[in-house]
């Protein structure tokens, strides 16, 4: 036998452990977020390019209330993730449902109430930018709510444990990411610039 064949391969193929798989999944999710930063960053850039130091005269109460709702939902999501980590299943299941309900309420606030206001998608750059920013964000909130409900259903049937719950962690990180996007969208849409009456 030659010397070359005597050397054992350094990396033998093996099934990744749950911890290894989680580490890879986590990295994959963050790389996905980097791609999303380009999407939302482009929307923010278009807002500042097209609106400059102005903004449509939107209802400040709706802006503050929807922001508050999303913030509270993030708190319940964080609580749910901590709860599954410490095997507190009752708190976990309850908080996941509360998060999904608050996410739905946020959608109702933005799409149901704010979209029904004076500003229409056809109102020039103000309408176009406002609807694409809130619409793209709302799409992410809807997918986040679906993700939470899928995970809630899996957990309700006994899935996940205090040690193995990547699905929950992934959904939680995604939900908080949606919150981070709104942290920048809220001042860009509602607070920065001189209000301009469209009609």
């Amino acid at each position, binding site marked *: 036998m030659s010397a070359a064949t005597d050397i054992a391969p350094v990396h033998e193929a093996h099934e990744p452990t749950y911890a290894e798989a989680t580490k890879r999944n986590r990295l994959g999710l963050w790389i996905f977020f980097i791609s999303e930063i380009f999407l939302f960053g482009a929307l923010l850039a278009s807002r500042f390019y097209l609106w400059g130091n102005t903004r449509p005269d939107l209802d400040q109460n709706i802006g503050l209330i929807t922001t508050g709702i999303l913030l509270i939902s993030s*708190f319940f999501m964080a609580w749910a993730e901590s709860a599954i980590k410490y095997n507190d299943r009752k708190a976990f299941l309850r908080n996941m449902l509360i998060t999904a309900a608050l996410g739905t309420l946020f959608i109702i606030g933005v799409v149901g109430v704010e979209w029904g206001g004076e500003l229409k998608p056809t109102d020039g750059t103000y309408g176009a930018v406002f609807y694409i920013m809130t619409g793209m964000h709302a799409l992410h909130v809807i997918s986040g709510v679906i993700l939470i409900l899928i995970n809630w259903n899996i957990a309700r049937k006994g899935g996940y444990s205090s040690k193995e719950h990547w699905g929950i962690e992934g959904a939680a990180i995604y939900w908080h990411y949606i919150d981070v996007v709104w*942290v920048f969208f809220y001042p860009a849409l509602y607070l920065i610039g001189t209000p301009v009456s469209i009609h």
Partner: protein
Amino acid sequence: MEETNQLEQKKKAEYRQNLFIFLALVLLTLIEFFVAINLDDPRVLLVIIALVKAGLIVQFFMHIYRLWRPEEHE
């Protein structure tokens, strides 16, 4: 028994931390709102507040530090 107590204390500490971060975010949002209403040109301040809020969420809710944490802590 000792281990159960320690776990319970860790759980309470984590719940408490989540609550503190949430309250900090609420406070910053209210400051953001009042700054926007009362200042003539609040742009710089609003960007700083948004960056602080995002930093808190990324660190404490999204746990970005787990990306470079050794596997034995999983």
